[in-house]
């Protein structure tokens, strides 16, 4: 096994200066973020918070509004409701680097009072205004977006005192973009990783988090683990010292707990393989990310079941959903209720590793790990100048293939189905290289349903949580 870890040779500070010429960023000098971060209380740093965590996983709600007042109100409400982390979710125009449109719609929203943005336009507001969002709130803020080129966005986020940056070259490109070149996305995120490393101090590290849910639609666990490990290695080689791998509730409790096990095992195994030891790794769980039930009782039960799963998986953090998920952007009250329900459910689940060592879960985890090892071994041999290059080649050759990705470089050849226990199984691997024993096991689990490509079956699998319990 050989992989060439990249050393960036160019002068990073010159690169930054060039980027920060942008009119929406140049209000603050290049050293603004470092000067601001050093003045912030240490408890605002995600990495520090994780060090101090007791038994219960941390809770992070979701939410982003266009207008400053609304975002301030949401942040205060969430902090009051007991959130351990605050979200700052970015609008879709900023995510697509369409800053002018975001600014125009922000001005229009401010004039009419009608919100025309589906998130917070961070560049349009700027760092000075954004710092004031969090006055008097001393918990970490997490940047949530979906941006293949987030270099400017992250510059402004760090200027604003946001200490946790979500994303990565694969997880924020393949599920979120149709045409942004994957190799460029990987290089943009190399910049972000390096920036976070450069602005970290031992007392105040900037925390990076990957987005393991990907498209959150029928993605098999081995593919989630493989993507998470590749992005972890890419961040570690740039000097990131605090990092979280993540995944989303699959719909199968066995597979969820096995995925948590496999992620933890593979993370420490591959970091050790490449002698990347100066990084602490956390595990983040996303409550069900697929189509959400409309009925309040079903939505609430699903949220609680996700919380229980996270507690059993001993996750470090849970990103919660709300009962109004099916209705659009959640209001502060439903978010507060989701935090309360989840915390209560998780506190009821204390008692160590109760079922994590169950034989079925262990067997599933072993199977996932065997597929990850096989796939990554081949990705590392894809050639190129550095790991990011090998990864880009692996996507283009279909070795990395994310179901339901809208991206034109994604092969879309792998086909997955749920088995009788609702676990996601490989019906057709496409170009993804997998060991024969793994494929045989997957097919055995599907028990002859491999070739069912009907619309109804597809909808049943995707809409699992909506069609469950009489919702059909």
């Amino acid at each position, binding site marked *: 096994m050989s992989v060439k870890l990249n050393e960036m040779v160019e002068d990073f500070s010159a690169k930054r200066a060039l980027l920060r010429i942008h009119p929406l960023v140049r209000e603050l000098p290049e050293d603004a973020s470092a000067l601001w971060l050093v003045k912030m209380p240490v408890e605002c740093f995600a990495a520090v918070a994780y060090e101090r965590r007791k038994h219960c996983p941390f809770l992070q709600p979701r939410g982003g509004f266009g207008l400053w007042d609304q975002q301030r109100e949401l942040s205060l409400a969430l902090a009051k409701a007991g959130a351990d982390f605050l979200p700052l979710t970015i609008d*879709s*125009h900023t*995510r*697509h680097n*369409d800053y002018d*449109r975001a600014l125009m*719609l922000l001005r229009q929203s401010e004039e009419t009072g009608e*919100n*025309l*943005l*589906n998130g917070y336009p961070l560049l349009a507001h700027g760092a000075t205004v954004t710092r004031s969002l969090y006055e008097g709130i001393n918990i970490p803020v997490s940047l949530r977006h*979906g941006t293949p080129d987030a270099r400017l966005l992250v510059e402004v986020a760090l200027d604003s005192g946001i200490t946790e940056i979500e994303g990565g070259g694969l997880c924020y490109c393949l*599920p*979120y*973009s*149709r*045409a942004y070149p994957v190799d460029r996305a990987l290089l943009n995120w190399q910049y972000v990783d390096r920036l976070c490393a450069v602005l970290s101090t031992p007392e105040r590290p900037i925390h990076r988090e990957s987005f393991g849910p990907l*498209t959150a*639609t029928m993605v098999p666990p081995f593919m989630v683990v493989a993507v998470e490990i590749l992005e972890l290695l890419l961040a570690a080689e740039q000097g990131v010292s605090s990092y979280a791998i993540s995944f989303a509730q699959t719909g199968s409790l066995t597979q969820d707990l096995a995925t948590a096990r496999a992620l933890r095992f593979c993370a420490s195994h591959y970091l050790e393989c490449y002698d990347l030891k100066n990084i602490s790794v956390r595990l983040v769980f996303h409550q069900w990310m697929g*189509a959400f039930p409309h009925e309040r009782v079903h939505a609430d039960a699903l949220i609680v079941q996700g919380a229980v799963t996270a507690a059993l998986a001993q996750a470090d953090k849970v990103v919660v959903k709300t009962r*109004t998920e099916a*209705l*659009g*952007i959640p209001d502060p009250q439903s978010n507060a209720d989701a935090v309360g329900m989840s915390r209560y459910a998780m506190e009821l689940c204390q008692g160590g590793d109760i079922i994590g060592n169950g034989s079925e879960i262990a067997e599933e985890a072993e199977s996932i790990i065997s597929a990850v090892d096989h796939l990554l071994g081949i990705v590392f041999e894809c050639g190129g100048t550095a790991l990011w290059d090998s990864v880009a080649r692996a996507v283009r050759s279909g070795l990395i293939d994310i179901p*339901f*990705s*809208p991206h034109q470089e994604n092969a879309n050849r792998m086909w997955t189905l749920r088995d009788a226990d609702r676990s996601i199984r490989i019906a057709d691997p496409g170009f993804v290289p997998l060991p024969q024993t793994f494929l045989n096991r997957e097919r055995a689990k599907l028990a002859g349903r491999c070739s069912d490509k009907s*619309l109804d079956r*597809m*909808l049943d699998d*995707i809409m699992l949580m909506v069609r469950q319990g009489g919702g059909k």
Partner: protein
Amino acid sequence: MIGVVGNDIHIVANRVLARGLRLAGYDVCNLGVNNPPDDFLNAAIEFEADAVVISSINGEGEGWVKGISAAFIKSGLSGVRLYIGGNLTVGDRPRDEVEARYLGFGFDRAYHRPISMDILLNDLAIDLYHVC
């Protein structure tokens, strides 16, 4: 012809819709996600579409499609049926109010948070083949 309008990357329903329409016997041209309004017009001309089904999931549809019907008429495509569906507003508003607003933009049919694809299939059959 189908596709998702705007800076909107929600692909799942788009893939399901394409499959459902094909299984119902339609010849489907799928533009996929992230389409500016002009792409629908250009593709409708090239594809000689009978109906254009636009989706918007992220709530920002209004700003993108306001002028689309006028643009179709201006290009001589007044015979092309225009449909829009998905999550058509930010926040929670009454369905009738939201749908009426889009009908006002010149759409033949609007579906705010539709429960099933069958509604569209029925309406297409009525509008294109006068089947009740």
